[in-house]
């Protein structure tokens, strides 16, 4: 024993050991998978709703959540590859600097589609064109900030609309998306702060808020799937 305790030396209690990075990453990977499941379930329900009713508004919500799912999937794959594969530094550089931007951009596209869905519902418009500036792909650092701010603005718009829907109906079903989008908005705001302050704790908090939002969507999907026929109002 290097430091016997019977020498009368006062020992300073050590802080609790932090979990190994691999374990934290594994936990985040699991949460990502859960969030992806929630998005896929909701995408499927929205697709079924569109295929049966042929209501155009469902298309925007379906596509929005489908793109959001694709973004989450790519994030999951990137994290899994970074954790498990022994790859060259060049490929790792590509993953973190180029491919890592895909989830961020897909979120912008997805939120834009969802925002259009809410807009069309509010204004009963027939169509709306979306133009995404391609130069965002070139300037990665600036693009990350721009899409971050853009996503936050889109989420703020979506949150207002989602809560308006809840205020009009006062039904639990419409409260879940509103709270989910609010959680995602908080996540994006915290993410921007974490990037500006380069604070890892804030980054993890942002991640957890994002996952909380996805879990709320999962609760909605589960509630919808488990609806009983006896609840049908005649």
């Amino acid at each position: 024993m290097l430091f016997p305790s019977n020498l009368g030396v006062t020992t300073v209690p050590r802080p609790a050991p932090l979990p190994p990075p691999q374990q934290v990453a594994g936990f985040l990977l699991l949460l990502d998978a859960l969030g992806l499941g929630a998005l896929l379930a909701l995408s499927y329900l929205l697709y079924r709703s569109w295929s049966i009713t042929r209501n155009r508004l469902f298309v925007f919500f379906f596509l929005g959540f489908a793109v959001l799912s694709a973004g989450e999937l790519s994030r999951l794959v990137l994290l899994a590859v970074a954790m498990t594969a022994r790859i060259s530094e060049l490929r790792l550089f590509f993953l973190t600097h180029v491919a890592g931007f895909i989830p961020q951009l897909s979120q912008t596209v997805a939120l834009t589609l969802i925002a259009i869905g809410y807009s069309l519902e509010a204004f009963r418009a027939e169509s709306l064109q979306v133009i995404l500036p391609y130069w965002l792909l070139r300037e990665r650092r600036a693009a990350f900030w721009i899409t971050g701010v853009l996503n936050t603005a889109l989420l703020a718009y979506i949150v207002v609309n989602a809560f308006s829907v809840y205020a009009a109906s006062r039904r639990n079903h419409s409260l879940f998306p509103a709270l989910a989008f609010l959680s995602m908005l908080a996540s994006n705001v915290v993410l921007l702060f974490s990037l500006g302050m380069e604070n890892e704790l804030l980054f993890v908090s942002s991640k957890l808020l994002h996952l909380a939002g996805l879990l709320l969507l999962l609760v909605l999907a589960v509630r919808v799937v488990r609806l009983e026929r006896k609840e049908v109002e005649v």
Partner: protein
Amino acid sequence: MSARRSKFRILSDIMRVVEREGEANVSTLLLEANLSYARLSKYLEELVDKGFLLRIEDGREVKFKLTPKGESFLREVKRIEAIAEAFGVEL
């Protein structure tokens, strides 16, 4: 609330009446579904063709009953209504 019901809404309304009544005749459906005779006949024919309703002839009276496929469809309708309600989509 929209002034004009979508086809999806009309078909689901007809099926709800049949579900509530167990077996519904045309007079009941006319009253409850708020449709003209011609339009109701067209929609009933479509629902029977799709296998959602079963046509039962009882003497001179014609009744309609939900099939298992129709019951399954009504469950799907409930889910769609919940999703539509969640996102503020008017059906």
